[in-house]
């Protein structure tokens, strides 16, 4: 007799536990307000990333097309993957002195691991992260970027 | 037992062992032929009972090949480091401790795979990560012109 009672008890407690699970899923089914997914490409306009989001490394330029990078190469040394390469050139200043300035700051997005060592260690705060996250391109060569804009100059007062 | 007591105790097991008190652990240097017997003693002795091998590292010292065992006793909570090194680079051989600590099975396979140290009496000594055609990448004289890029 006891075994029959246990048998029935098993069934009832089992069914009860199943019903509890069904309550959870069922309650979400009837509450569409709890949906968390978004219609991503449609909500592109009002999608705001956090301001610290590490999208890609950029070099901010001001309105006079001036940047802060003096080509010291610390970012290149710090980069663990060799995704940064600095090509510098010598110019002759007005007073006849030679000076090495940056020609191209090459950044390979395809190799970047977003460790932020370059941005953090830059002595003149020339680098920053942008909030851009849609990096897909059709040609791999497009992922090699030159960060300083053409014709840009070193900002005054930055050495 | 604290570090000093442990060192003294292990010294009493065999006078050949070289005991050094490190920053964190007592470090015992063992000549390769004694490795297995000392390990077994440390595992089975009532006073030490090192039942948990928490790390097994293979090292290329340049001339020697070495293995470092980190042991811990879950009963007493003390730890010890065993070090052994063999000067034979071509065919380094050490005794396997995989029948004392089962976890050594995988660790020794890893060391064999990456450093080429053979463990005698290991039940299943095959390469773990790499193909048979690879060299032993963690050795300091390993060269790979294609996959290792240095600036």
């Amino acid at each position, binding site marked *: 007799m006891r075994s029959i009672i246990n048998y029935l008890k098993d069934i009832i407690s089992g069914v009860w536990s199943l019903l509890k699970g069904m309550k*959870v899923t069922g309650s979400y089914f009837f509450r569409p307000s709890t949906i968390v997914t978004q219609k991503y490409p449609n909500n592109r306009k009002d999608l705001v990333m956090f301001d610290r989001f590490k999208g890609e490394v950029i070099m901010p330029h001001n309105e006079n097309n001036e940047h802060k990078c003096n080509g010291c190469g610390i970012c290149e040394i710090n980069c663990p993957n060799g995704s940064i390469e600095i090509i510098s050139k010598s110019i002759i200043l007005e007073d006849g002195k030679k000076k090495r300035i940056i020609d191209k700051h090459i950044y390979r997005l395809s190799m970047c691991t*977003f460790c932020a060592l370059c941005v953090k260690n830059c002595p003149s705060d020339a680098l920053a992260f942008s909030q851009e996250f849609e990096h897909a391109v059709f040609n791999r060569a497009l992922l090699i970027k030159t960060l300083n804009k053409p014709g840009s100059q070193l900002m005054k007062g930055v050495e | 037992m604290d570090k000093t007591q442990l060192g003294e105790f292990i010294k009493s097991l065999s006078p050949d062992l070289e005991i050094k008190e490190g920053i964190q652990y007592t470090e015992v240097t063992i000549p390769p032929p004694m490795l297995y017997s000392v390990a077994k003693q440390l595992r089975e002795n009532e006073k030490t009972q090192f039942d948990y091998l928490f790390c097994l590292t293979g090292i290329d010292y340049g001339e020697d090949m070495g293995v470092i065992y980190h042991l811990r006793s879950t009963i007493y909570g003390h730890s010890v480091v065993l070090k052994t090194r063999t000067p034979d680079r071509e065919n380094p051989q050490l005794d396997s401790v995989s029948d004392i600590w089962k*976890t050594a099975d995988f660790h020794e396979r890893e060391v064999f795979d990456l450093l080429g140290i053979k463990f005698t009496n290991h039940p299943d000594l095959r390469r773990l990560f790499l193909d048979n055609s690879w060299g032993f990448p963690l050795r300091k004289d390993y060269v790979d012109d294609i996959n290792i890029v240095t600036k």
Partner: protein
Amino acid sequence: MEEKVKIIIPEEQQEYVINMGPQHPSTHGVLRLVLSLQGEMVKSLKPHIGYIHRGIEKMCESITYQQIIHLTDRMDYLSAHINNEAVCLTVEKALEVDITDRIKVIRTIMSELTRIQSHQLWWCSFGMDLGGLTCFFYGLRDREKILDIFEETCGSRMIVSYNCPGGLMYDIHPNFQKRVKEFIKYFRKTLPEYDQLLTGNVIFHERSKGIGILSLEDAISYGVTGPSGRASGFSCDVRKQEPYSAYDRVDFKEVLFTEGDTYHRYLARIEEMRESMNIIEQLIDNIPEGDFAVKMKPVIKLPEGEYYQRVETARGELGVFVISDGNKNPYRVKFRSPNFVNLSALNQIAKGFKIADLVAIGGSLDLVIPDIDR
């Protein structure tokens, strides 16, 4: 004339060998298990690993200590922060740097958040392994809230790279405390749902109780740590044994069971999420003022010697063993990764159970393959 020879293999030697993986939904990555079956019963299994072996230990020998951080992120990507913390603690211990209390507390909070999100993802995938697909989405939904906290403070969601030798990369975001408190409040409400959906479910009990028993002796001998080891009664919580960061100033209990089956490995993780929330609640309101990073030299050179640091990741004990010869690059770095060791016990645990049980056991060990391969 060709002679036909009939070879009769005795029944106990007949084996049905199947390859589980490297592409299989429930190996959670590129793990390959070669199973010998008898009927549906697993007679023996051999793990084949190395499909994503990247040679992190070799790479570490040619980069500086700051740069190691971005590699440890990618070992156990679900406890990225804890891995980084281990490397930083090793370096700080070697250099005998005193880090501020603020760093310690923030690191602890972040570690516990990492642990919760890792266990949440484990819960999703464990539910999915057992066929309850809805678990997957509930777990991910809640994990998203932690990832948002990470994204706001660290700039990335999973591979946080938030630690650096000597402290943290940036200070916490002003919203950090508020968001963490909101999350704790939310998750205290949703965790019972997990219980209703899976923990109390009779089918789940049938699938997990008494399945894949790992005895205490085996757990210690194999070195199975983390929640998997603690379910077998192996007291291996590094946070208790060798408290690092701010674990010595918080009050929490080590979740220990003695049964060592799949169900108790599951319970250990669920309970650990609760303990992690307790730890965070104790710390979140009193983050001390101070610097978020100690000034370090631009080129870190560790004094010659050997340094070992153990930390408790979401899956077990991670050991970082650094041998330095005084240069800016380490001479040898060894990562004693918990998953590598836990995997070695899989054959012992799964022997004699069915394929469906193997899936459950593998799920309950919570393997992360990049951590195994390194």
